[in-house]
C-alpha cells in the first residue's frame, strides 16, 4: 500500500523546486469509483493528491496533451520541467514516449508509484450501485474495503479489479526519478488468452462481431485523445486536405478509423487500456490492439514501453532486416 503522506511529501519537494512547472497526479473524484487527474502548479496544493485503487487514469497522457502556446514577444519560453506520478502501466507510456523522442528525459521528473491494482468502476457499480458521493477504497489483504454512501462494503479484489490488472506484469514503474513506495510483486504473466479466444472464431463470426461494435461508434475520438501514444499534432483522421477518412459515422468510415488507429499503435501500444475504459459505447478496442501486440511480440520479439534504450520498432530501419519481396 502506498503511504499517501509520503507521496504528498515527495510531491511537495518536487513542486517546491524552481525548475518544476507543474505536477500531474490524481485527486479524489467528485463522485463514484474513479479519481480525477489533477495538475498542480503550487506546492501548497499537494494535499489534494491521493493514491488508492480509484486512481485508474494514466497521467502520462497529460504530458503530451499540453498545448505548446506561442511565446508572446519579449518573453522567454518556459522550459521548466513537468513532474508526473505514474503507476507501472503508466510508466510504460513514458518509456515509449522517450523511445520516440516525444520529449527529453530531462524535461520530466517521474515519481513512480508501485501499484497493486485499480478498480473497474463498472464492476463496482454492478456490485454496489452508483453513488453521487466519492468512494474511498482501501486494500486489506486480498479484499477491497469500500465506503459507499457512508457504509462500509467489502469484496474480493479479484472480482472488482480491472481485467488488465489480473495479467499485469509491470506493477512497478519502469522509469522513475524516485519511488514513493516499495516495489511490489507482479500479479501474473500474460498469455494473451483473451486474444487467442477471440482469434479462434471464424472470419464470418469476427466480422459480424466487429460490424456490430463499429456501428455503435460515435467518433468522439476519446480513445485517441486519452491514448498517451496518440500525440500527433495533426491526426490523420482529422486532416481535411487530403481527407483520408470521412466524418460520416457509417460502418465504412468507423471501421477505417479503428483499424487505422490499431495499425498506428502496432509496436507502440503499452496496454494501459484507457481507450477501452473511456469509450462511451463500450467498444472492445483493446481486442484489436492486443492482437497486434501479441503479433509484434511473436514476429519481432519486441515489447514497447519497457526499455528506454530500445529503438521504435516500425520507425527504424536496419540493413539486416529480412525482406524477400522488393529486391
Amino acid at each position, binding site marked *: 500500500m502506498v503511504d499517501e503522506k509520503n507521496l504528498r511529501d515527495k510531491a511537495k519537494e518536487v513542486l517546491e523546486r524552481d525548475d518544476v512547472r507543474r505536477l500531474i497526479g490524481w485527486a479524489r473524484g467528485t463522485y463514484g469509483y474513479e479519481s*480525477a487527474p489533477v495538475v498542480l502548479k503550487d506546492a501548497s496544493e499537494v494535499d489534494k493528491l491521493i493514491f488508492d485503487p480509484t486512481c485508474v487514469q494514466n497521467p502520462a497522457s497529460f504530458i503530451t496533451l499540453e498545448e505548446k502556446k506561442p511565446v508572446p514577444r519579449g518573453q522567454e519560453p518556459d522550459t521548466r520541467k513537468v513532474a508526473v506520478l505514474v503507476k507501472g502501466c503508466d510508466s510504460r507510456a513514458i518509456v515509449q514516449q522517450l523511445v520516440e523522442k516525444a520529449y527529453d528525459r530531462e524535461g520530466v521528473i517521474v515519481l513512480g508509484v508501485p501499484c497493486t491494482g485499480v478498480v473497474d468502476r463498472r464492476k463496482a457499480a454492478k456490485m454496489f450501485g452508483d453513488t453521487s458521493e466519492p468512494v474511498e477504497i482501501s486494500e486489506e489483504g486480498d479484499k477491497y474495503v469500500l465506503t459507499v454512501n457512508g457504509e462500509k462494503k467489502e469484496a474480493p479484489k479479484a472480482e472488482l479489479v480491472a481485467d488488465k490488472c489480473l495479467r499485469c506484469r509491470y506493477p512497478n514503474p519502469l522509469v522513475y526519478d524516485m519511488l514513493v513506495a516499495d516495489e511490489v510483486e507482479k500479479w501474473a504473466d500474460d498469455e494473451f488468452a483473451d486474444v487467442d479466444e477471440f482469434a479462434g472464431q471464424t472470419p464470418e463470426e469476427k466480422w459480424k462481431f466487429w460490424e456490430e461494435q463499429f456501428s455503435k461508434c*460515435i467518433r468522439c475520438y476519446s480513445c485517441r485523445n486519452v491514448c498517451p501514444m496518440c500525440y500527433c499534432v495533426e491526426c490523420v483522421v482529422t486532416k481535411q486536405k487530403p481527407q483520408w477518412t470521412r466524418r460520416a459515422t457509417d460502418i465504412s468510415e468507423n471501421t477505417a478509423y479503428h483499424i487505422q488507429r490499431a495499425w498506428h499503435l502496432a509496436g507502440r501500444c503499452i496496454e494501459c487500456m484507457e481507450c477501452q475504459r473511456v469509450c462511451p*459505447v463500450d467498444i472492445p478496442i483493446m481486442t484489436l490492439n492486443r492482437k497486434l501486440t501479441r503479433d509484434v511480440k511473436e514476429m519481432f520479439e519486441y515489447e514497447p514501453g519497457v526499455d528506454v534504450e530500445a529503438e521504435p520498432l516500425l520507425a527504424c530501419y536496419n540493413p539486416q532486416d529480412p525482406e524477400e519481396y522488393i529486391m
Partner: protein
Amino acid sequence: MGDFKFAKDKMAEVIGALKDYQVLAPKAVGDVLRFQPVEDPAQVSLDYPNTNVPPKELMFPETETLFKYRVGQTDIEPEVPDASARRLIFGIRPCDALAYTIVDKLYAWDFPDPYYQKRREATVLFGFACSEPAANCFCPSMGGGPASEKGLDALMFDVGDTIYVKTLTDKGEEAAKAMGLEAAGEAQMKAADAQEKEALAKIKRTLDHSGIPEKLPSLYDHTMWERFSDRCLSCGICTFLCPTCHCFDIQDEMEGFDGRRARMWDTCMFSEYTLHTSGHNPRPTRKERTRNRISHKYSYFPEKFDVIACVGCGRCINYCPVNIDLLDILEDVKKAEVKEAKTA
C-alpha cells in the same frame, strides 16, 4: 387529457398494436443502451436508467444527407424527412424530452431547419417517469423532474404490475387509442404521485443557477478555467452525449460521379472546430474551448432563448473519463470573484 393503463405483461401487445407508427425503444447492446427501432415488441424492456447516447439522435441523426447531386448536373435532390412517416419514441425520459423543447428553439430560429422539424412533427413522445434517479441526475434544478411533463405527448409510470399512462396532447391521445389502452383508476394515479415524490427525494445533486448566466461573461479572464481544462482530453464525449448539444459539421462526399452534402455531429471540444484555413484558431487550447462550452450552455444560449441549455441528465458527469464535473465547475463560477472587466 386522459388517464390510461395497461398491464406490464401486455407491453408487447400494446406496442405491437401501433401498426401505423415506427416504434423506437431502448435496446441494449452489451451494457450500452440506445434507442433503436423495435423489431420484436416482446424484447422491449423499460427496466433501464437512461440511454448512453441520448435520443437526440432520433431527431438529429449522427449523420444525415442534406441533399444529393451528380457531377455535371445542376439539379439538387434534397432528402428532407417525411413528416407523415409517424414514429413513436417509447420510454423517453423526461429530461430528454425537455431537451427537445430547448433544441427546438434553435432549429426554429430565423431559418427553420426542415430536417429536424419534420422529424419532430412526425414523432410522438411517450415518456417514462423515473422511479430510481441515477447518481448524477439534477433535473429538478434545471426546470425538469423525474415526472416532468414538459415536451411529452404522454407520460408512463411503472406502478407495480401496471403501467399508468397519462396522455398530455392530442398526438398522445391518438397513440393511446391506437394502443387500445383501458382507462386508469384512482389507485394508479395516486401511486404515480407517490412515486414522483419518492423519486424527487432520491435526487442528491442540486444546482442553484440563479445569477450564473449574467456572471459568466465577466469571468472570461479568470484563472478558474485552467483548473479543470488542464485535465480535459478534448474528446467529444460530453457534447456527443449531451441531449441539448446540437453542433454539426457539413461535408461534401463523392463516390464516382454521385455525391451528397451531409451533416454530422461535431463538437466545440475539437481544436479543428474553429480552425481557420489561414491557420489561425481563436480557441487554440482546451482552456478557451471548455470556457466557451460552459459559457454557451449557461450564458450565451439563455441570452438568446431564455433557457439554459442543460436539462440535468448528468451524462456529461457520468461519462467524462477524467471526472470533469459540471456541477463542480458551476460551484466555482458562483464562488469566483469578479475582477474589473478588461476592455480591449
